[in-house]
């Protein structure tokens, strides 16, 4: 048995969150999520938290473990021999206990149009839309994101400005921009070029550190800065050319 602390929030009881201690049984393979499930089943059924796959695939079990964003199912109690405090994901509004409101995160994901946009690369719909392994390798790393939101909880820029598009959404935009079957880059560059786009990032880099899937969103954001600089330069010259023609 060992003790873990959980930051609870029960709005009908108190307007303030409070820490509560629980005693849970541990073995070498007890995950943070196992401990939470034990508490809910055996000690306190009112404890609220999200989970589904318990194998680092669904991305729903993100929590702060001793202040660091982690997937509850991929983080083990054996890593924390001393104190262990579990809190809801940082930088998002907390609805109840460990359940955060992901709306702003989802809004940012939607804003970058994370789907194949057809255009000059339009596929003949009667044919398979082929891609070589090399073409796929260009974006595959960025396609591994499970939308867990850990990178948003790690990003101080998102913490300070929730309008910042943020690591996962920019990585997703980059993933589609790099896809040989896609023609939507011009549409995606508008939100990325904006003040809350790639330029809000100062390359703290903690997002990539905490990402459980090795997506390296910081690399995507900063590759996005190169793309953004290019697209803004192109716009500038086009603007000049048009202005020049009008004179």
């Amino acid at each position, binding site marked *: 048995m060992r003790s873990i602390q959980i930051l609870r*929030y029960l709005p009908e009881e108190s307007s303030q969150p409070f820490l509560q201690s629980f005693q849970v049984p541990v073995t070498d393979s007890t995950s943070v999520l196992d401990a939470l499930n034990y508490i809910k089943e055996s000690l306190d059924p009112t404890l609220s938290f999200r989970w589904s796959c318990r194998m680092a695939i669904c991305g729903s079990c993100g929590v702060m473990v001793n202040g660091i964003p982690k997937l509850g199912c991929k983080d083990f109690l054996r890593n924390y021999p001393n104190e262990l405090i579990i809190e809801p994901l940082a930088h998002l509004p907390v609805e109840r206990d460990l359940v955060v409101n992901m709306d702003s995160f989802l809004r940012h994901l939607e804003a970058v149009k994370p789907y194949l946009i057809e255009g000059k690369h339009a596929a003949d719909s009667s044919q398979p839309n082929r891609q070589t392994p090399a073409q796929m390798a260009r974006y595959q790393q960025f396609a591994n994101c499970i939308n867990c939101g850990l990178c948003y909880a790690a990003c101080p820029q998102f913490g300070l400005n929730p309008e910042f598009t943020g690591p996962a959404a920019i990585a997703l935009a980059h993933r589609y921009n790099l896809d040989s079957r896609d023609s939507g880059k011009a549409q995606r560059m508008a939100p990325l070029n904006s003040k809350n786009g790639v330029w809000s990032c100062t390359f703290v*880099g*903690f997002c990539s*550190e905490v990402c459980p899937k090795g997506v390296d969103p910081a*690399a995507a954001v900063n*590759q996005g800065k*190169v793309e953004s600089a290019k697209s803004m330069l192109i716009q500038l010259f086009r603007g000049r050319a048009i202005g020049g023609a009008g004179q």
Partner: protein
Amino acid sequence: MSYKPQLTGSWWLKHRFFKAYMLREATVIPLAFLLCSLVAGAFSLQDPERFQHWQAFMSNPLVILVHTLALTASLYHAATFFVLFPRVMPIRVGNYQLPARYLVLAQWGAVWLIVALFIWLFAFGGQS
């Protein structure tokens, strides 16, 4: 009804990763001082007396200390930058992705090349 904890000004003290980030950003402070010293030096060139003053200023131990700090800081900044560079500009030759460590080594190689060039210019007057 939800609550949202606000980020305080001390957010960066919470984790060593953030402290390292702040240190990287703070390297600009001694560098700015060095830059100001050099600009002052350039202006003092017009007048021999002012140039002497500037030379005295530059040999002040405190100034030397800050300038040494600027050198260390820029080396630290370079080290962090060189590691980040291959992630921002991955280099691909055909289907082959150049491993990041070669790019990091190449950047340090360039630094040593420039250092060697300056040693040759200043210590040997550009003669072998």
